[in-house]
Protein backbone atom coordinates (compact mmCIF):
# COMPACT_ATOMS: atom_id res chain seq x y z
CA UNK A 1 0.00 0.00 0.00
CA UNK A 2 1.27 3.46 -0.83
CA UNK A 3 1.55 5.78 2.14
CA UNK A 4 -1.20 8.29 2.78
CA UNK A 5 -0.11 11.62 1.24
CA UNK A 6 -2.66 13.46 3.39
CA UNK A 7 -0.05 13.26 6.15
CA UNK A 8 2.39 15.57 4.34
CA UNK A 9 2.78 18.74 6.39
CA UNK A 10 1.35 17.31 9.57
CA UNK A 11 3.29 18.34 12.67
CA UNK A 12 3.53 16.57 16.00
CA UNK A 13 4.94 18.06 19.18
CA UNK A 14 6.51 16.11 21.99
CA UNK A 15 3.93 16.01 24.79
CA UNK A 16 6.51 16.61 27.52
CA UNK A 17 10.00 18.10 27.49
CA UNK A 18 12.88 15.70 27.03
CA UNK A 19 15.27 16.08 29.95
CA UNK A 20 18.84 15.37 28.91
CA UNK A 21 20.59 13.53 31.74
CA UNK A 22 24.24 12.81 32.34
CA UNK A 23 23.41 9.13 32.72
CA UNK A 24 21.61 8.94 29.38
CA UNK A 25 24.52 10.61 27.61
CA UNK A 26 26.90 8.18 29.33
CA UNK A 27 24.72 5.22 28.33
CA UNK A 28 24.53 6.45 24.72
CA UNK A 29 28.31 7.02 24.58
CA UNK A 30 28.86 3.50 25.91
CA UNK A 31 26.47 2.09 23.31
CA UNK A 32 28.39 3.70 20.44
CA UNK A 33 31.68 2.59 21.99
CA UNK A 34 32.95 6.13 22.50
CA UNK A 35 35.17 6.61 25.56
CA UNK A 36 35.46 10.39 25.18
CA UNK A 37 35.51 11.80 28.75
CA UNK A 38 33.55 14.87 27.61
CA UNK A 39 30.55 12.51 27.32
CA UNK A 40 31.08 10.81 30.63
CA UNK A 41 32.69 13.11 33.17
CA UNK A 42 31.29 16.55 33.96
CA UNK A 43 34.64 17.70 35.36
CA UNK A 44 36.35 16.76 32.08
CA UNK A 45 33.61 18.57 30.18
CA UNK A 46 34.04 21.68 32.33
CA UNK A 47 37.79 21.54 31.86
CA UNK A 48 37.12 21.61 28.12
CA UNK A 49 35.00 24.73 28.59
CA UNK A 50 31.51 23.22 28.65
CA UNK A 51 28.86 23.76 31.33
CA UNK A 52 28.33 19.98 31.68
CA UNK A 53 28.76 16.78 29.68
CA UNK A 54 28.05 17.19 25.97
CA UNK A 55 25.75 14.91 23.97
CA UNK A 56 27.29 13.10 20.98
CA UNK A 57 26.32 14.56 17.57
CA UNK A 58 23.82 11.77 16.85
CA UNK A 59 22.26 11.79 20.33
CA UNK A 60 19.03 13.64 19.34
CA UNK A 61 17.83 10.48 17.61
CA UNK A 62 16.90 9.34 21.13
CA UNK A 63 14.03 11.82 21.33
CA UNK A 64 13.67 13.60 17.99
CA UNK A 65 11.26 11.07 16.51
CA UNK A 66 9.11 10.63 19.59
CA UNK A 67 6.55 13.17 18.48
CA UNK A 68 6.45 11.92 14.92
CA UNK A 69 5.65 8.42 16.18
CA UNK A 70 2.07 9.47 16.65
CA UNK A 71 1.77 10.17 12.93
CA UNK A 72 4.05 7.40 11.65
CA UNK A 73 2.19 4.81 13.75
CA UNK A 74 -1.26 6.02 12.74
CA UNK A 75 -2.95 3.10 10.89
CA UNK A 76 -4.31 5.67 8.42
CA UNK A 77 -0.73 6.47 7.39
CA UNK A 78 -0.16 2.87 6.27
CA UNK A 79 3.47 2.35 7.24
CA UNK A 80 4.68 -1.24 7.66
CA UNK A 81 7.52 -0.90 10.18
CA UNK A 82 8.83 -4.39 9.42
CA UNK A 83 9.83 -3.09 5.98
CA UNK A 84 11.37 0.17 7.18
CA UNK A 85 15.05 1.00 6.92
CA UNK A 86 16.74 4.29 7.64
CA UNK A 87 17.60 6.15 4.44
CA UNK A 88 19.23 9.39 5.44
CA UNK A 89 19.88 11.39 8.59
CA UNK A 90 21.21 14.83 9.28
CA UNK A 91 21.58 17.01 12.36
CA UNK A 92 22.30 20.72 12.26
CA UNK A 93 23.24 22.47 15.48
CA UNK A 94 22.65 26.00 16.71
CA UNK A 95 24.44 25.03 19.89
CA UNK A 96 25.61 21.78 21.55
CA UNK A 97 23.22 19.74 23.69
CA UNK A 98 24.27 19.51 27.35
CA UNK A 99 23.16 17.45 30.31
CA UNK A 100 20.47 19.42 32.09
CA UNK A 101 18.85 20.71 28.91
CA UNK A 102 15.09 20.45 28.71
CA UNK A 103 14.17 20.15 25.07
CA UNK A 104 11.01 20.22 23.01
CA UNK A 105 10.75 18.71 19.55
CA UNK A 106 8.22 19.44 16.86
CA UNK A 107 8.29 16.81 14.13
CA UNK A 108 6.83 17.47 10.71
CA UNK A 109 6.24 14.90 7.98
CA UNK A 110 7.70 17.17 5.35
CA UNK A 111 7.87 14.94 2.27
CA UNK A 112 6.75 11.55 0.95
CA UNK A 113 8.04 10.33 -2.39
CA UNK A 114 8.17 7.05 -4.28
CA UNK A 115 11.45 5.85 -5.75
CA UNK A 116 10.98 2.63 -7.65
CA UNK A 117 9.07 0.28 -5.36
CA UNK A 118 10.11 2.13 -2.20
CA UNK A 119 8.49 4.95 -0.26
CA UNK A 120 10.74 7.69 1.17
CA UNK A 121 9.40 9.73 4.10
CA UNK A 122 11.20 12.83 5.36
CA UNK A 123 10.57 13.89 8.95
CA UNK A 124 11.99 17.21 10.10
CA UNK A 125 12.44 17.65 13.84
CA UNK A 126 12.87 21.16 15.23
CA UNK A 127 14.44 20.97 18.68
CA UNK A 128 14.22 23.97 20.99
CA UNK A 129 14.54 24.88 24.64
CA UNK A 130 11.42 25.51 26.71
CA UNK A 131 11.86 29.20 25.88
CA UNK A 132 11.85 28.45 22.17
CA UNK A 133 15.57 28.93 21.63
CA UNK A 134 16.55 26.77 18.60
CA UNK A 135 19.05 24.05 19.55
CA UNK A 136 19.19 21.68 16.62
CA UNK A 137 17.26 20.35 13.66
CA UNK A 138 17.00 16.70 12.68
CA UNK A 139 16.23 15.57 9.14
CA UNK A 140 15.24 11.92 9.04
CA UNK A 141 14.47 9.96 5.87
CA UNK A 142 12.96 6.54 6.39
CA UNK A 143 12.45 4.07 3.57
CA UNK A 144 9.62 1.58 3.41
CA UNK A 145 10.85 -1.20 1.15
CA UNK A 146 8.24 -2.31 -1.32
CA UNK A 147 5.80 0.26 0.02
CA UNK A 148 5.13 1.95 -3.32
CA UNK A 149 3.92 -1.11 -5.18
Amino acid at each position, binding site marked *: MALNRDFIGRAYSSPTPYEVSRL*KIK*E*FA*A*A*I*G*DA*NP*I*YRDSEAAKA*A*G*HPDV*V*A*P*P*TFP*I*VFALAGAGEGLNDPEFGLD*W*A*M*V*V*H*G*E*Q*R*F*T*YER*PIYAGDQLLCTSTISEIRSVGRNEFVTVRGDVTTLDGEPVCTS*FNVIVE*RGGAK
Partner: protein
Amino acid sequence: MGATIKWDEVEQGQELPAAEYQVQRVNLVMYAGASGDFNPIHWNERFAKSVGLPDVIAHGMYTMAQGGRYVTDWAGDPAAVVDYGVRFSSMVVVPDDDNGATISVSGIIEEKLPDKRVIVVLTARSGDSRVLSKARAVVQLA
Protein backbone atom coordinates in the same frame (compact mmCIF):
# COMPACT_ATOMS: atom_id res chain seq x y z
CA MET B 1 35.77 25.15 24.71
CA GLY B 2 36.33 24.06 21.19
CA ALA B 3 38.35 21.98 18.83
CA THR B 4 42.02 21.32 19.34
CA ILE B 5 42.69 21.35 15.58
CA LYS B 6 43.50 24.80 14.23
CA TRP B 7 41.82 25.99 11.06
CA ASP B 8 45.02 27.72 9.95
CA GLU B 9 46.90 24.43 10.08
CA VAL B 10 44.66 22.33 7.84
CA GLU B 11 44.42 22.37 4.08
CA GLN B 12 41.75 21.65 1.57
CA GLY B 13 42.23 18.10 0.31
CA GLN B 14 43.99 16.98 3.47
CA GLU B 15 43.28 13.38 4.41
CA LEU B 16 42.47 12.53 8.00
CA PRO B 17 43.91 9.36 9.57
CA ALA B 18 41.69 6.35 8.86
CA ALA B 19 40.12 4.35 11.68
CA GLU B 20 38.39 1.01 12.10
CA TYR B 21 35.51 0.21 14.43
CA GLN B 22 34.30 -3.27 15.33
CA VAL B 23 30.61 -3.95 15.71
CA GLN B 24 29.24 -7.10 17.31
CA ARG B 25 25.74 -8.19 18.23
CA VAL B 26 26.19 -6.95 21.79
CA ASN B 27 26.86 -3.46 20.48
CA LEU B 28 23.56 -3.52 18.61
CA VAL B 29 21.72 -4.69 21.71
CA MET B 30 23.30 -1.85 23.68
CA TYR B 31 22.46 0.60 20.93
CA ALA B 32 18.87 -0.60 20.81
CA GLY B 33 18.55 0.04 24.53
CA ALA B 34 20.28 3.42 24.49
CA SER B 35 18.47 4.75 21.43
CA GLY B 36 15.08 3.14 21.98
CA ASP B 37 15.12 1.60 18.48
CA PHE B 38 14.06 -2.00 19.15
CA ASN B 39 13.36 -2.94 15.54
CA PRO B 40 14.09 -6.71 15.59
CA ILE B 41 16.04 -6.53 12.30
CA HIS B 42 18.86 -5.23 14.52
CA TRP B 43 18.96 -8.13 16.99
CA ASN B 44 16.79 -11.04 15.82
CA GLU B 45 18.32 -13.10 13.02
CA ARG B 46 15.16 -15.14 12.52
CA PHE B 47 13.10 -12.00 12.06
CA ALA B 48 15.70 -10.27 9.86
CA LYS B 49 15.76 -13.23 7.47
CA SER B 50 11.99 -13.44 7.42
CA VAL B 51 11.84 -9.92 5.96
CA GLY B 52 14.43 -10.66 3.29
CA LEU B 53 17.62 -9.44 4.95
CA PRO B 54 20.80 -11.54 4.80
CA ASP B 55 21.23 -11.45 8.58
CA VAL B 56 20.95 -9.00 11.47
CA ILE B 57 22.02 -5.55 10.32
CA ALA B 58 23.40 -2.66 12.35
CA HIS B 59 21.22 0.33 13.04
CA GLY B 60 22.06 2.96 10.45
CA MET B 61 22.41 5.33 13.38
CA TYR B 62 25.05 3.09 14.93
CA THR B 63 27.12 3.40 11.76
CA MET B 64 26.46 7.13 11.63
CA ALA B 65 27.61 7.38 15.23
CA GLN B 66 30.94 5.74 14.30
CA GLY B 67 31.41 8.40 11.64
CA GLY B 68 30.56 11.02 14.25
CA ARG B 69 33.06 9.54 16.65
CA TYR B 70 35.68 9.64 13.91
CA VAL B 71 35.10 13.37 13.40
CA THR B 72 34.88 14.32 17.08
CA ASP B 73 38.04 12.35 17.89
CA TRP B 74 39.85 14.20 15.13
CA ALA B 75 38.51 17.63 16.04
CA GLY B 76 39.14 17.13 19.77
CA ASP B 77 35.71 18.32 20.93
CA PRO B 78 32.28 16.78 20.32
CA ALA B 79 30.73 20.24 20.32
CA ALA B 80 32.80 21.19 17.27
CA VAL B 81 30.44 19.29 14.96
CA VAL B 82 27.81 21.82 13.88
CA ASP B 83 26.27 19.87 10.99
CA TYR B 84 26.47 16.17 10.24
CA GLY B 85 24.50 14.26 7.65
CA VAL B 86 24.70 10.89 5.91
CA ARG B 87 22.89 8.66 3.48
CA PHE B 88 22.74 4.99 4.42
CA SER B 89 23.83 3.43 1.15
CA SER B 90 24.35 -0.16 2.21
CA MET B 91 23.73 -2.36 5.22
CA VAL B 92 26.32 -3.35 7.80
CA VAL B 93 25.62 -7.06 8.18
CA VAL B 94 26.61 -8.29 11.64
CA PRO B 95 27.09 -12.05 11.87
CA ASP B 96 26.75 -13.87 15.17
CA ASP B 97 30.40 -14.84 15.54
CA ASP B 98 33.43 -13.68 17.51
CA ASN B 99 34.33 -10.91 15.08
CA GLY B 100 31.09 -9.30 13.97
CA ALA B 101 31.67 -6.65 11.33
CA THR B 102 34.24 -3.91 10.80
CA ILE B 103 33.35 -0.35 9.84
CA SER B 104 36.31 1.42 8.23
CA VAL B 105 36.11 5.21 8.20
CA SER B 106 38.28 7.73 6.41
CA GLY B 107 37.85 11.41 5.82
CA ILE B 108 39.10 14.32 3.77
CA ILE B 109 38.83 18.06 4.21
CA GLU B 110 36.74 18.96 1.23
CA GLU B 111 36.53 22.67 1.81
CA LYS B 112 37.68 25.38 4.18
CA LEU B 113 34.79 27.67 5.07
CA PRO B 114 34.78 31.16 6.62
CA ASP B 115 34.58 31.47 10.43
CA LYS B 116 37.19 28.74 10.88
CA ARG B 117 34.88 25.97 9.75
CA VAL B 118 35.67 23.05 7.43
CA ILE B 119 33.64 20.49 5.55
CA VAL B 120 34.86 16.95 6.20
CA VAL B 121 33.64 14.29 3.78
CA LEU B 122 33.64 10.79 5.20
CA THR B 123 33.90 7.39 3.58
CA ALA B 124 32.65 4.42 5.58
CA ARG B 125 32.98 0.85 4.38
CA SER B 126 32.10 -2.55 5.71
CA GLY B 127 33.31 -5.55 3.76
CA ASP B 128 33.02 -4.67 0.08
CA SER B 129 30.24 -2.14 0.61
CA ARG B 130 30.25 1.57 1.04
CA VAL B 131 27.84 1.88 3.96
CA LEU B 132 27.56 5.67 4.14
CA SER B 133 27.38 8.00 1.19
CA LYS B 134 27.01 11.77 1.10
CA ALA B 135 28.52 11.67 4.58
CA ARG B 136 29.51 15.17 5.44
CA ALA B 137 30.28 17.07 8.60
CA VAL B 138 30.79 20.78 9.14
CA VAL B 139 33.31 21.22 11.92
CA GLN B 140 34.16 24.35 13.88
CA LEU B 141 37.93 24.42 14.27
CA ALA B 142 40.04 26.61 16.54
